[in-house]
């Protein structure tokens, strides 16, 4: 049995230090050692997007990332998206638009959407579809998800520039 190796990385804003076997996968480390079970395992082979987290500002499939690759990295999981008692505009929009059904794809979907809005504050429908093209959903048909992402984008733009007139649906 090989020695454990130490990882030090920032998860949801807090530095964490974990000792783990060298062949540990990031997804399992997050879910088990760190008890952050919000990130889901849909296939374990990088084909569904349920395990999506944001690593150093970009979405990655945590089921394919060796934990040691994340040493020194900054990770956001679903647990880090909102704040205590306050939903992120994306979460609020998903709730308002009815974009959650069984919820299993939702954490990964939200993080793909977050990464999109961090880079592109005014995405078109096609751009949203492309950003979530690596997140499979079997329940919703994506329609309300796309609407929710664009609604959240609008909210975030308003937050930055409250002077602009709002065009909120419903």
């Amino acid at each position, binding site marked *: 049995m090989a020695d454990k190796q130490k990882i030090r990385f920032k998860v949801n804003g807090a530095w964490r230090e974990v000792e783990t076997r060298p062949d540990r996968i990031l997804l399992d480390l997050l879910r088990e050692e760190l008890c952050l079970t919000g990130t889901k395992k849909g*296939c374990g*082979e990088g*084909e569904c997007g349920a395990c999506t987290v944001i690593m150093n500002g970009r979405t990655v499939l945590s089921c394919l990332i060796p934990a040691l690759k994340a040493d020194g990295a900054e990770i956001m999981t679903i647990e880090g998206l909102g704040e205590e008692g306050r939903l992120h505009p994306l979460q609020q929009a998903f709730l308002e638009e*009815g974009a959650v059904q*069984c*919820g*299993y794809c939702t954490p990964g979907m939200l993080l793909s959407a977050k990464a999109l809005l961090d880079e592109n504050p005014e995405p078109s429908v096609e751009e949203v579809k492309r950003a979530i093209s690596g997140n499979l*959903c079997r329940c919703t048909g994506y329609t*309300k998800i796309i609407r929710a992402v664009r609604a959240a984008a609008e909210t975030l733009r308003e937050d930055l520039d409250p002077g602009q007139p709002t065009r909120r649906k419903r």
Partner: protein
Amino acid sequence: MSKESCDVVGRSVFRVDGLDKLTGKACYAGDIAFPRMLHLKLLRSDRPHAKILGIQTGEAETHPGVVAVFTCRDIPGTNQIGRDKPDQTVLCVDKVRFIGDPVAMVAAETPEAAEEAAALIRVEYEDLPGIFSPEEALMPGAAKIHPHGNILMEQTLLRGDPDQGLKDAEVVITNTYRTQMVEHAYLEPEAGVASFAEGKMTVWMPSKYSHYDQRELADAIGLPREKVRVVNTTIGGCFGDKTSLSPGYYAALAALKTRRPAKMVYSREESFIATRKRHPFIIQYTTGATRDGRILVAKVEIVADTGAYCASGPTVLVKSLIHAAGPYEISNVSMKVTFVYTNNPVGGSMRGLGVPQVAFAHESQIDILAEKLGMDPFDIRLKNGFRPGSVTATGQQLGDSVNLVETMTTVRAEMARIGTPPSTASKKYGWGVGAMFYGIGAGGRSNPGGARLEVDDAGAFTLFVGIGDVGQGSSTALVQIAAEVLNCRVEEIRVVAGDTDCCPDSGVTAASRVTYIVGRSVQIAAQRLKGQLQEAAASIIGLAPGNLQLDNGFFLCPEDPLRRVSVPQAVAKLKEKEIPLSAEGVFDPEFIALDPKTGQGEPMATYAFATQAALVAVDVESGEVEVLSIVACHDVGKAINPDCVTGQIEGGVSMGLGFSLTEEILLEEGRIRNPRFSQYFMPTALDMPETVSLIADAPEATGPFGAKGVGEPALLPTTPAIINAIHAATGIRVKELPATPERLWRLLHS
């Protein structure tokens, strides 16, 4: 049923489970861990049909980390499972019948150790001839998959005089349609965790019917049912599966034997290989009509590949029989539906229960008829389509809640508004339409729903129902129904779902029955509890209960609103009078069972109706089809939560899209060649068309606030609409699903 406007019902309130799902707090079975928990791995058959001569578990037992190894000898109770026919085993005894049949199980300290040890189990097989199609299975002298032969079940339907109908018909068309094996492919892989303490087994699992799994599981592990508790975890998609033989059973087996908590999670590959599939159908369909488009006769013969075991084959068979003639008044109908065993993966319940397959056939037939007669596809459907009071192929006269016509006219208008792009030499555009009807509830048998509502000292309500929300929004809809009756906010009602210790048996989450049947049960329970509280309040105020209204937590008399009693005060009164602080509701829709020969009867109490249209662009050189637009209109009776309803429609459309164009389980001699998401092509966000989802109202008198259902109707018209659109665009008629580019290319070039 009161027609006054509703405060809560009919509004798109936020889902009651939304917050937890959005923040990562929702607990799915795979998220559960206990100290000292064992990890389980099944060894499954790697061949489709074989006798088991012996199983050597010695090497596995001594592998580091292994705590126990199980074979059929280690099943304390009954090893046979299956609701209609217990022909399937928890662990195989003398035979394996499909690749994936479970043979042995390892319990170990880590998932890796369990997997390594499972690979060390040696099974000695004697191969038997494999049967991979119904045709092979029906040949004289074919190997018997089960002792009683290879036909699982056959049923017929006869209405009127079909032979005379054929003579009278001026146009007769006959076509054969084939549909493929399809996988549920929910994002959450099956999982279950069990813990045995103080003589009681608790199993946490996603289940579409906790009480059924509790009974079957208890029988399998040899415990009395009251010593087994099934707790429904958050369900990550179900679509008809996540029931019966599932990881929870095996976890309970291991927990009982080892006295340690145990957990099993299927790998995605295992989920593809081992779980039930949609039955592939071969449908031979003859339709006869008059020259002015009145359908006189339909003759349908269906042969379905039911795979290795019975599972819910009979349910799918009966549903197919009930719906195969489509939502059309046809006086002369004959049907024969035969479900045949093969050594292919097991056919089970998947969203639509045989009706996606028959809808593809009946909607193709009527489209072909329309073309032959020079009729508009809507006109021929309107001419024959069901209206209130129409009689179905099973001889049932429909009630008032029949709004097929509005779904058609709405879709037609929306199509005209969207328009059709002009075709070019290589890209052809066209619209196609599909219509459907779907009975709500199990067909032709009792399927009661149950609910219990409790109130506490503080006036807070708790709703107990036996079925968990599979993602479709049932918990939310049921709470809305209760809140409407109790005139309170949704937030004031807590839901406890799917816990066999405290929830009543509500029946199964299937057949689109939950809103209608369980919802009605909830409504009844809420009305009863409200009645009890109202009487208590009346006795405090000194008025007759009929003079009081419940208004935001207070019973009061409208003429003198200051004389009011709060719900907690009424509760205190009930306690004083020793009246229970709870009420139950049960609703079992009326039915008349189908006659075994003629299929005549009244199998469901109410039906949903829908029309969808699809705009496609077909690249006639490559065979590629792009669906640009879907318009859907569904008669759901009354939408309890419109966003949940349109969400179901949109999800159904994506499933129908996959069924029509891209999804297929590829089998070679019983082996699934594409058991992964990267090779099983369900739609991604980039593949999904613009979808317009509309709701038509047609209140069902026996439903809660007029509601019926939408879960399965959501996908039924999509595939026919797309296939008919391909025909409209290119003149090509696809009769075999999926309509892959290569299939279309062959048809276009032949």
